[in-house]
């Protein structure tokens, strides 16, 4: 059986600029896998092999370059089966703290933009696909996963319904800051969240995020009607 540390080093060999912290984290995951699996070395080996296959199995096209397969720490740790044992709390906390620390707020401090613009962003699923024009601003495709405006009946259910989001939370202090942060980087609060880190990964601009915040919080937004 391979020593876990060897695996970690192999694992990280293709990555550039990864910190010692991420290697430690990875070690934690590997150790957990070792502890929980009947055939631990094959598990770790399969992960190694799968990563190698991913690297050789794709080619860049349009704006989608191969660096998109370079996983950051959260992606690596969160690449796990739905029924895998729960992540260690310290690992979760570390992911959340790291993501939270990287959140950037608009220079002017204004967190509420235009909800109408937010609705357009929420409807659009364009952006970052190799078939998309990189010059066209990306959408957030919120409706793909969430219910928002009551008039839009074509909504997905991967995420929780957000109908009445602002109305329900009107009294919560700093709700705008929380909402902005959640959209900018949902993993600042929930490690391994399914939701894209729209600001962190530069899918949306800071201004676009403030428009989506307005869609959720503005009393005139259909979400709160």
């Amino acid at each position, binding site marked *: 059986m391979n020593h876990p540390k060897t695996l970690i080093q192999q694992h990280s060999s293709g990555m550039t600029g990864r910190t010692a912290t991420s290697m430690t984290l990875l070690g934690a995951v590997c150790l957990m896998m070792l502890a929980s699996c009947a055939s631990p070395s094959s598990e770790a080996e399969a992960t190694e092999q799968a990563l190698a296959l991913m690297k050789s199995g794709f080619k860049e096209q349009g704006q989608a370059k191969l660096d998109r397969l370079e996983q950051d720490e959260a992606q690596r740790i969160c690449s796990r089966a739905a029924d895998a044992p729960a992540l260690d709390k310290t690992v979760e906390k570390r992911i959340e703290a790291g993501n939270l620390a990287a959140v950037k707020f608009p220079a002017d401090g204004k967190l509420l933009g235009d909800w109408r613009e937010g609705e357009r962003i929420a409807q659009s*699923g*364009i952006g970052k696909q190799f078939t998309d024009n990189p010059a066209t601003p990306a959408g957030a495709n919120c409706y*793909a996963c969430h219910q928002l405006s009551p008039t839009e009946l*074509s909504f997905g259910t991967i995420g929780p319904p957000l109908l009445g989001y602002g109305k329900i939370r009107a009294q919560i202090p700093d709700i705008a800051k929380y909402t902005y942060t959640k959209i900018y980087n949902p993993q600042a609060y929930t490690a391994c969240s399914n939701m894209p880190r729209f600001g962190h990964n530069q899918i949306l601009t800071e201004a676009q995020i403030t428009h989506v915040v307005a869609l959720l919080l503005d009393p005139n937004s259909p979400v709160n009607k």
Partner: protein
Amino acid sequence: MNRRNFVKNSSLATAYTLAVAAGLIAPGTVLAQAGWNEKAFAGKNLKEAAASLGAANFAETKDVNWGSTPEIAENGAVVPISVTSNIAKTEQIAILVEKNPSALSAAFDIPAGTDPSVTTRVKMGQTSNIFALVKADGKYYVATKEVKVTLGGCGG
């Protein structure tokens, strides 16, 4: 209504056919095959298209069975349409989509011995009424059915 309705449509169609026959218009290059009722297929609505097919007027009918024609189409690119006429001496069945840029989709001539029943598939840009224009014993009848269209593929 626009001025098209004041034009004798059949004479135009004839003029086109004659022009093709005379070599004035090369068939199949720009416009169409000889005999193809270009004017009918250019008609914007039921009335225009029907007029070009020779139906100056028509009566509403319920004597049409829509068979497997769905009430909702998951994709407008392919909408199955099935039309069976229960009107005696049916000789032609035309299928029209009210809200398409040109209403007429297809016109079938039904000779004696063939069931007055056709099934095909049409494109629909949006939710619309479908018309079955039936010619029977020289008279024209129209039946209507609404088909709702959902658009799939929301990844974009």
